[in-house]
């Protein structure tokens, strides 16, 4: 009897051991990867779907982490996580302005992505390569665009404004006519002027299109204190309270989209993502929205659009780096980029997709965008490196002061110059 028990006991042990081995093998192969993506509703949908596909295909588990909506806050959060060497996030969606700031905490993707590199826009790959290491795989690219209400322009027999002056006069004319007809809710132009990174993009577009340079030039010299930059900021301030509600001073992308999409604005400055959303479901402006390049100044050859875009980066502190890189490769693959272009108007970073018939047919933005993307102005991130957040913040603070009429453009750029030199100290 006792023998029998012992024998059974041994068998039980073997069985248990077998389970453990099985379990252990499974955990080695099936890693759990956390991806931080999706700050807005459409982002979430268009990220989770493809990450889940990857999980199903590979047998790994994927977890989602929603970063803050504002890119400024998201960056701050990642810097805190990385300072603590946290493994909480494996794959993160990285703004094109971040590689210089996060360079010490990200894995080099070059070895695993060697065959991919040549299929993306070289400018983005160059932007993401710091000290010879590829820190992010391009996911989608962005540039500021002018959205307009086709129906309102047609109704009042106005043309799409090509210059800032025309934007002002067209908006004023339509507003006057619509107000007279009882539409008091309507606003002329909404953009992003809350004190955050988005305002730096808007301000860069004004300054660059007025011929005021790019705040800090390629050699690292602070160039913002010039009459054209001052004029650009003064012009922007003249729109606030005239064709733009004072509330824009607290608007981010989603606030502006909210106003425009509910039919309460004639013009909006936003990124391409807003287009697909404005044509969906409960939008009040389905079929009434047109998109054009942002205005230039009268007589200038071209306007300026801030270059945006997002990349997939992998944390150095990830516990499953192989699976994480695999997920990043999947998310930036041609198939996923194509699907996202069709469903979410996210612009591919692969030139080949701009020739793809389905993409051209399914997303009318593409035809307009190629020119805008080619001419987009990058923010002065490469030259300012780790200090870029401070530079950008000084820039948006100065702009916010001008827009809220606390300062004139001339005073603001002068003060900004001394502040930027103070941030720079001896070198960037």
């Amino acid at each position, binding site marked *: 009897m006792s023998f029998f028990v012992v024998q059974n006991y041994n068998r039980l042990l073997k069985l248990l051991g077998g389970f453990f081995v099985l379990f252990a093998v499974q955990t080695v192969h099936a890693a759990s990867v956390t991806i931080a993506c999706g700050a807005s509703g459409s982002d979430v949908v268009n990220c989770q779907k493809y990450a889940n596909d990857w999980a199903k295909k590979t047998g790994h588990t994927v977890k989602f982490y929603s970063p803050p909506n504002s890119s400024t806050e998201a960056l701050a959060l990642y810097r805190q996580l990385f300072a603590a060497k946290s493994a909480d996030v494996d794959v993160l969606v990285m703004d094109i302005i971040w590689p210089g700031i996060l360079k010490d905490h990200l894995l080099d993707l070059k070895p695993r992505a060697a065959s991919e590199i040549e299929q993306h826009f070289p400018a983005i790959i160059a932007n993401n390569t710091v000290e010879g290491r590829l820190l992010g795989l391009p996911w989608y690219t962005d540039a500021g665009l002018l959205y307009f209400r086709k129906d309102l322009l047609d109704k009042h027999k106005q043309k799409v404004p090509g210059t800032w002056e025309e934007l002002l006069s067209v908006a004023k004319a339509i507003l006057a006519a619509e107000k007279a007809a009882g539409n008091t809710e309507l606003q002329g132009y909404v953009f992003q002027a809350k004190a955050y990174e988005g305002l730096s993009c808007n301000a860069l577009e004004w300054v660059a299109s007025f011929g005021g340079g790019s705040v800090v030039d390629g050699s690292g010299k602070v160039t913002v204190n010039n009459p054209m930059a001052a004029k650009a900021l003064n012009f922007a301030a003249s729109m606030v309270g005239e064709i733009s509600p004072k509330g824009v001073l607290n608007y981010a992308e989603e606030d502006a989209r909210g106003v425009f999409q509910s039919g309460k604005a004639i013009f909006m400055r936003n990124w391409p993502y807003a287009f697909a959303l404005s044509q969906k479901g409960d939008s009040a402006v389905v079929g009434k929205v047109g998109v054009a390049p942002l205005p230039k100044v009268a007589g200038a050859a071209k306007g300026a659009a801030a270059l945006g875009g997002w990349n997939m980066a992998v944390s150095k502190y990830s516990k499953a780096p192989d699976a994480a890189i695999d997920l990043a490769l999947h998310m930036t693959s041609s198939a996923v980029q194509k699907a996202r272009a069709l469903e979410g108007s996210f612009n591919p970073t692969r030139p080949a997709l701009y020739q793809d018939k389905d993409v051209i047919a399914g997303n009318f933005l593409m035809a307009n965008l190629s020119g805008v993307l080619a001419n987009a102005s990058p923010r002065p991130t490469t030259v300012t490196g780790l200090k870029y957040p*401070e530079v950008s913040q000084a820039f948006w603070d100065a702009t916010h002061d001008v827009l809220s009429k606390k300062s004139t453009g001339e005073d603001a750029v002068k003060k900004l110059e001394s502040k930027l030199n103070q941030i720079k100290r001896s070198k960037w």
Partner: protein
Amino acid sequence: MTKQTATKTAWRFLAPMLLLMLVVAVWPLSRSVWFGFTDANINDLAASKWVGMENYVGEFGLMFNPNHSDGFWRSDWGIAIRNTLYFAVVSVGLEVLTGLAVAMLLHQDFPGRVWVRTAVLVPWAIPTIVSAKMWQWMLHDQFGIINELLLNAGVLAQKIAWTADASTSMWSVVAVDVWKTTPFMALLILAALQTLPKDCYEAAKVDGVHPLRVFFKVTLPLIKMPLLVAVMFRLLDALRVFDLIYVMTSNNSSTISMSGFVRREMVDNGNMGLGSAASTSLFLLIFISAFVFIKAARLRFSEAAK
């Protein structure tokens, strides 16, 4: 038990708490003070170097900075100090008045008093982040219900961008803080009111003294001490305000507080050194304010006793 063993036992009981304090308060606090004397950057804390008083009074420091061409009070740190002091004084002042009013009201006997008292506490019970976000939506210039109501009532001719306009943003923040903290003040004052002896009031009633006179000559002097304690709590709280302002107005220069500045330097810009120096200054400023307030309050209290 001798006195010595009693002391020993006391220390033994205190030890876990002291140890915990050491770990969760003394260590982080001293580390933060230490960072204030270094050039630490969040990117790599291990690489930080000792820079002495550079963060406080150096070329790029908080004070006596030669780059502040418009003077200290126009620099970012100066603006943050001004905003914070303005916010603290105005909001606490208003909260004392509204708190007193609500407490006097709740002190009266009326049917359903218990329910009203509970209901009054609701704003205080909502987490600040939540109430700040809630008010931000209500104060939204295009969709906000506040603009809608005021427009419909004919008070406003056009919509106001409450949280965005430089002239109204600070007042919006103060108003929300008053809304949120009035219950706290009212509760503390109400507690003081309930301990007051009834005989003074009966005597005043018999003598036919005007209720306002009773309030200023009897009630106010009697609740002065608890009131001052409540004011001090609120003042210390208001001096380190962060969440309300950050959520409602996103740290723009019209409303940025000292804590907001610290957060911006430390987290957004990664300058742990300068940020820690600023947070140490903030700590000292709060400490000095508390000290001055206690001294001043006692002084006046003893004068009243004369």
